[in-house]
């Protein structure tokens, strides 16, 4: 890809160990933990040019660049982050972090629990978006970042950006909330629960302690991912890409893969079930379900956003039905009612929820326009 021209190049992950106990929303306390993260670009002298990238359900800290020159795929948001790209590493110091409960290096259910020398498994505490934000704030402290120039995220990542602006108003100059929602709808929770049930009822799940049995609940995770994938695409997008295409050109009258869409989903499911931790998947979907900053304000989102100081950029995509534009507009309306600064774009795209990872021109232009202004204000 031409993107290699504008890549951050070869990158390496780092670990930060924290031994200050972290109190979690569920009441549990994580006595010590590790966060894996990556950084690109340089922190300026007054430490004002840092951007935090928050990841979505299956994301992680590896946001841009490659670990080796011959690596097939770069970080998951390499299209947006790099020299000269909208999140310009020539101007910003970009931080990607793997969330607690994750399975890409930060402390999570598959990590070894120090007091038992066994994987945490089912004993890993439930995480919330707010817990993640508090843990990320400690990473910011460690990196010497008092205030983020921007906190950016799509989907579940957008929820973290929103929560950052509420939990630490003075520490967020700009919040970019993309393809997200102020809370999940019943339909969204329903999808998440079907995904969870697929995992929880897999005989290889063993109540979450499958590590000791030397097995992985692959079938459950695969189904969960297949279901999720359907909801990330739009009907039109899927129709345009796969339609009713058959692999062999004729009906086989059996249950093997016949339609291209079946082949695609199964491939995605298989790939995912080999590399993702089932307990992490469960935790991430619960964090999505629990997120509701208006909950403590009697459902009044405007009141929940009262402390916000950040300027907002909210973006949604026309064909996204998992986190539809209506949900983004709820955030926008609450911000406007509170007199907060907000730009809102409803971007024409056929890519469904996945559009936040794509490069539709109006989307890229919006990100570039917004962040260019942020960079100019930093330089002023």
């Amino acid at each position: 890809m031409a993107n290699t021209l504008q890549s951050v190049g070869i990158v390496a992950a780092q670990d930060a160990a924290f031994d200050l106990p972290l109190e979690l929303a569920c009441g549990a306390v994580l006595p010590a933990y590790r966060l894996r993260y990556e950084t690109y670009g340089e922190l300026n002298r007054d430490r004002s040019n840092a951007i935090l990238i928050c990841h979505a359900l299956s994301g992680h800290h590896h946001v841009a660049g490659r670990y080796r020159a011959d690596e097939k795929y770069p970080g998951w948001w390499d299209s947006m982050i790099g020299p000269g790209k909208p999140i310009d590493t020539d101007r910003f110091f970009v931080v990607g972090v793997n969330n607690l409960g994750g399975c890409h290096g930060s402390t999570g259910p598959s990590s070894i629990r120090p007091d038992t020398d066994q994987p945490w498994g089912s004993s890993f505490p439930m995480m919330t978006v707010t817990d993640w934000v508090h843990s990320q704030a400690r990473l910011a402290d460690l990196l010497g970042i008092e205030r983020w120039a921007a906190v950016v995220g799509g989907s579940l990542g957008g929820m973290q950006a929103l929560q950052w602006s509420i939990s630490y108003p003075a520490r967020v100059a700009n919040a970019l909330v993309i393809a997200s929602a102020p809370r999940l709808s019943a339909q969204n929770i329903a999808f998440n629960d079907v995904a969870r049930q697929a995992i929880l009822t897999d005989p290889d799940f063993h109540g979450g302690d499958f590590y000791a049995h030397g097995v992985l609940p692959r079938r459950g995770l695969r189904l969960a991912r297949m279901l999720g994938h359907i909801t990330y695409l739009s009907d039109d997008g899927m129709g345009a890409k796969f339609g009713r295409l058959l692999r062999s050109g004729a009906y086989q009258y059996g249950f093997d893969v016949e339609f291209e869409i079946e082949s695609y989903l199964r491939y995605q499911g298989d790939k995912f079930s080999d590399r993702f931790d089932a307990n992490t998947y469960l935790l991430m979907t619960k964090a999505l379900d629990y997120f509701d900053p208006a909950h403590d304000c009697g459902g009044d989102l405007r009141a929940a956003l009262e402390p916000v100081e950040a300027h907002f950029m909210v973006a949604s995509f026309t064909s996204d039905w998992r986190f539809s534009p209506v949900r983004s507009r709820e955030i926008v309306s609450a911000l406007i009612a509170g007199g907060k600064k907000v730009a809102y774009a409803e971007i024409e795209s056929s890519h469904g929820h996945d559009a936040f990872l794509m490069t539709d021109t109006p989307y890229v232009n919006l990100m570039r326009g917004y962040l260019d202004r942020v960079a100019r204000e930093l330089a002023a």
Partner: protein
Amino acid sequence: MTSQLRPDLQLIADWISPSSRVLDLGCGDGALLGWLQENKNVIGYGVEIDSDNIVRCTAGGVSAIQSDLEVGLAGFGDGSFDHIVLSQTIQAMRQTEQILLEMLRVGREAIVTFPNFGYWENRWQILRGRMPVSDTIPFQWYDTPNIHWCMLGDFEALCAKNKVRIIERVVMDKGKFIHVLPNLFGSLAFYRVTADE
């Protein structure tokens, strides 16, 4: 960006009170709001349908919301703005009456401007047998966004029908105020209206 505003936008800007809350419907590239933020310390929002204009507003630090005015102002609470501006857009709207009422639901005071169809040059072109094309109406009849033409009296009748009070009216032509026979010599009309008694 303390640049000069277009004369028609400057007139609107003069009607906006300092430190007020302003909603600009069809805000374009955000020129008016940008000026008001800089010079009158307003809390301003724009509504705009065009994505390139959203990017321009965003890059200029103007809060712009991408939305279609034809669907109304559902996301905006009652009485949540001091001033609502609809600049040279009402003649292009399908839901003309509805937007006027929506504006006065959301805002205390509305500023509506439109090209006056009764302008003498328009009348002259019609007399000569053609639909008018001019500085303020730069479109051919077959390729125009403008579907609801009106003259001063028409707009005032719509206001009267809906018990909308006209606070002030200004008529201009080529950047100059028109006081004599405004419906004949004015090409642009500016109204400040309110639903208050």
